[in-house]
């Protein structure tokens, strides 16, 4: 199987901002991403959990976004603008993908 180098970006972001992040990514030309639910976590703003929540303010999502290396900067800049004033983390990993034509 031929594998192609790419970058895997993982963004943990408040669920309330997810729609905005998706829009920003799409605008930056990043059309492929996967959104995972997050059950809880901990950070500088303390621990939290999704259990029994009804407020739309709680909860986070994890975006996983695989891109060609040359689009990484555009992606990070778009993501950063959304996350900037908000809590959350952005993390980049080297990876390899099959079916490179999809990215």
């Amino acid at each position, binding site marked *: 199987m031929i594998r192609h180098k790419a970058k895997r970006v993982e963004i943990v972001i408040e669920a*309330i901002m997810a729609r905005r992040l998706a829009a920003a990514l799409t605008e930056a030309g990043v059309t492929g991403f996967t959104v995972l639910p997050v059950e809880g976590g901990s950070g500088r703003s*303390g621990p939290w959990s999704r*259990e*029994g929540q*009804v*407020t*739309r*303010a709680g909860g986070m999502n994890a975006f996983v976004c695989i891109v060609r290396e040359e689009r990484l900067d555009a992606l990070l800049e778009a993501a950063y603008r959304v996350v900037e004033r*908000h809590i959350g983390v952005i993390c980049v990993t080297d990876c390899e993908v099959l079916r490179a034509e999809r990215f």
Partner: protein
Amino acid sequence: MDSVFALAAANLVSPVILSFALGLLAALARSDLSVPEAAAKALSIYLLFAIGFKGGAAVAESGFGGTLALGLLAGVILSFAIPLVAFALLRVVSRLSVVDAAAVAAHYGSISIVTFVAATAALQSQGIAYEGWMVAVAAAMEAPAILSALWLVARKGGAAEQEEGLLREVLLNGSIVLLVGSFLIGVATGAEGLAKIESFIVAPFTGVLCLFLLDMGLIAGRGLREMRRGGPVSPALIGFGLLMPLIGGAAGLASALLIGLSPGGAALMTTLAASASYIAVPAAMRVALPEANPSVYLTLSLGVTFPFNLTVGIPLYIAAAVALAGG
């Protein structure tokens, strides 16, 4: 005064309140009791749909009456005005930053639909009627307070995020749409529609409310546990959380008397003004004022004011409304 205490006591041993207390105690004792997020959301959808529909069906029966427009207007004005009072008070009694104070103020101007629902349940168990369209007033009071808060921050030079989509998002948030939508469905289908779904939205209503308040208790208890570990909520802030509903409630009651609501309607208007949001406003604050600390406003509205209203507030508001607006 005696009867207020009797009412409060009767209120306290209702399954609804005790379910809340159970959740609170379970969370404080660090039990792993929990309600799945999807179940909690489903319960809230049920409650909003039921309360909206019943309000609409009641209006279809008895007509809007002359005061609907006045009621809506009063609600909107209260929602705009209460945050200004709350903000001023907070700046005096606490050391909250402008942004934090404005965020808290927004919550108190807006409303808690569950508190409203609990008040309707209390009215019903005492056989006191109210204007069905009060749910529309509740919906109308959700959003204006957010604008007041953003204006407060902007005036102080703070940078509320210039979010274009925000106002739209708040006005079309799920709770408002479901409440208003089911209210209109109730108006359209009337008694006939109600008859079709009565055994779904009327009979089991109080029981569902119990489970929902169990969950609210669990969440409030978790919040209070964090607070005990030394969160940012000072005694002065707790005092604010107990005093502010009385101030808001008084304003609500005054407005209700002014526009001539029925005793039940006056009690609900008082409750709405006294209650603090913990669903719509926190979400809006996360978007527009991300620097505001959520544990301050969530602890106050859900951990302090909500239980206060549920236990002491509602019977008090009902008693006051009956005394002043009553026959």
